[in-house]
């Protein structure tokens, strides 16, 4: 957007820097301001990140040595289940919705989201859903220990904690769908004059496509858990073979949601990276249009690859072949994206501030996770590796490194714009290096234990896996502690940070950097900017 000219000024000369009719806690409960709600989403996701992280610490503590040391197997299963659910639905997804709330209106020149009150509702559903998940630990039988995939028929045998989890998933789904409707409507209807779709920052594009994925995929999960609920309590037999149902059907519908879900998490991360890399390369994004088409291609393909998660259920070879070829095909648009990011950096005036470090870390490590994904897409190989730690390593490279590193890149990139304060660059770089080293210690070795046959979701293991597990646990503890440094960096920036410039990063070219002061006023673009 470097070529655009704002003929209306910033629209902030007459801004009213008030926070609605309330102060204190009521400001946050009643707010309809997209920036407040973005902040709420981001803090909520950080709390969930630490909660899910604490569960990961319990898992790694138990796996530090063979045999049962700290927790019983039932509780271990509850930990793996809740770690997965909380990280996916409570930490990563809300983090990117937080980015969307903060950035989309500013990047398209809109005053706020299209449905400001619904935006408030979308957020405030989340704490209740998270409470349901946590309360399930205190129910008779504890939290469900079924895995985050909630496969039938195990879900039918669980205690009342399972029902709380089902309702939590319903609430999380409602929140996501409302958020998505808001995002799509905002992007389609509230763009400033001159902000055509193909001039939007790529972050907006990735979120537009992600929101469509959410609207189509989340109700499928809601349907799956609703049928689980009626199977548990109302005498239906959707997933019970004794009554004419089929437990494998559950897996089909779960993964029909579950694979798009992978891209619901990954695409906004791609969007963040597509803003950060050009800014620190001081070049426009290479192949903008191809990025948009690649993102759309990934979204469409994500709906026809679901059964690669279930090669071992006994599907026909033709089925395996179809899902194998379709899955392999996703490497093409993903490769286009990785190529474009690298080409953006090519011959750029690169500098390596913390956001760029996290973006490059993402590029290397997400691609590594992508490659192991390609390995797992091959049905013959996957049958060997199914449910081993190789799979755990693969999806943590994509999620715990890919999505989380993109999240960190985005936080460091936009924190100066949001708060008006700069973070401590030295500490930021330290956070990057500690995170990168420890997360690789955690997950790289899991490829080896997985290849050697160590199964996932089991609290005990043979002696032969001990060394890899010890290394992995030490890495996990280090990564966990490093995130306390991140909290310190953010708090220090907010309280004592140096004043940030209006355009803190000279290569940043989207509207929030070029058209708005730092920190951004509470109400921005009350007068629409006209872009030429």
């Amino acid at each position: 957007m470097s070529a655009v000219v704002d003929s209306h000024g910033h629209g902030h000369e007459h801004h009213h820097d008030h926070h609605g009719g309330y102060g204190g806690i009521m400001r946050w409960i009643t707010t309809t301001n997209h920036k407040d709600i973005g902040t709420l989403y981001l803090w909520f996701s950080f709390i969930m990140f630490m909660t899910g992280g604490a569960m990961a610490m319990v898992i790694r503590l138990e796996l530090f040595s063979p045999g049962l040391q700290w927790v019983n197997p039932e509780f271990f299963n509850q930990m793996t289940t809740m770690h997965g659910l909380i990280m996916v639905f409570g930490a990563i997804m809300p983090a990117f919705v937080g980015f969307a709330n903060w950035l989309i209106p500013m990047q398209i020149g809109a005053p706020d989201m299209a449905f400001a009150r619904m935006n408030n509702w979308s957020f405030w559903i989340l704490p209740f859903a998270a409470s349901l998940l946590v309360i399930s630990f205190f129910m008779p039988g504890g939290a469900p220990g079924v895995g985050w995939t909630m496969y039938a028929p195990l879900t039918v045998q669980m205690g009342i904690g399972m029902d709380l989890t089902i309702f939590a998933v319903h609430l999380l789904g409602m929140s996501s769908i409302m958020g998505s409707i808001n995002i799509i409507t905002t992007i389609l209807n509230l763009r400033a004059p001159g902000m055509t779709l193909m001039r939007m920052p790529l972050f907006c594009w990735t979120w537009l496509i992600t929101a469509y994925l959410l609207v189509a995929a989340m109700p499928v999960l809601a349907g799956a858990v609703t049928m689980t609920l009626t199977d548990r309590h109302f005498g239906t037999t959707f997933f019970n073979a004794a009554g004419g149902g089929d437990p494998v059907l559950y897996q089909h519908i779960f993964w029909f949601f579950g694979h798009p879900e992978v891209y619901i998490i990954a695409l906004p991360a791609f969007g963040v990276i597509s803003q950060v890399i050009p800014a620190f390369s001081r070049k426009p994004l290479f192949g903008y249009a191809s990025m948009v088409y690649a993102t759309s291609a990934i979204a469409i393909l994500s709906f026809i690859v679901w059964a690669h998660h279930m090669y071992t259920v006994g599907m026909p070879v033709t089925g395996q072949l179809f899902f194998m070829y379709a899955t392999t095909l996703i490497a093409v648009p993903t490769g286009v994206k990785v190529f474009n990011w690298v080409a953006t950096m090519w011959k750029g005036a690169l500098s390596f501030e913390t956001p760029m470090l996290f973006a490059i870390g993402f590029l290397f490590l997400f691609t590594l996770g992508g490659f192991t994904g390609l390995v797992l897409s091959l049905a013959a190989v996957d049958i060997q590796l199914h449910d081993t730690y190789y799979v755990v390593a693969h999806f943590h490279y994509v999620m715990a490194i890919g999505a989380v590193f993109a999240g960190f890149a985005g936080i460091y990139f936009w924190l100066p714009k949001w708060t008006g304060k700069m973070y401590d660059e030295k500490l930021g770089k330290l956070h990057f290096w500690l995170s990168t080293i420890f997360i690789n210690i955690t997950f790289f070795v899991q490829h080896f234990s997985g290849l050697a046959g160590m199964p996932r979701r089991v609290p005990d293991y043979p002696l032969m896996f001990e060394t890899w597990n010890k290394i992995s646990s030490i890495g996990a503890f280090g990564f966990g502690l490093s995130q306390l440094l991140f909290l310190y960096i953010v708090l220090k920036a907010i309280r004592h940070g140096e004043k940030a410039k209006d355009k803190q990063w000279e290569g940043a070219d989207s509207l929030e950097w070029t058209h708005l002061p730092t920190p951004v006023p509470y109400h921005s673009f009350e007068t629409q900017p006209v872009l030429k």
Partner: protein
Amino acid sequence: MSRNLKTALALLLISLVSFIGTIVKIWMMRGG
């Protein structure tokens, strides 16, 4: 009806079709 409301209702319709369609599809696939 405003353009925003029309967009939202269309998207809500997609999600409802997705939700009900999932349950109806699984219902139809039950064995005897």
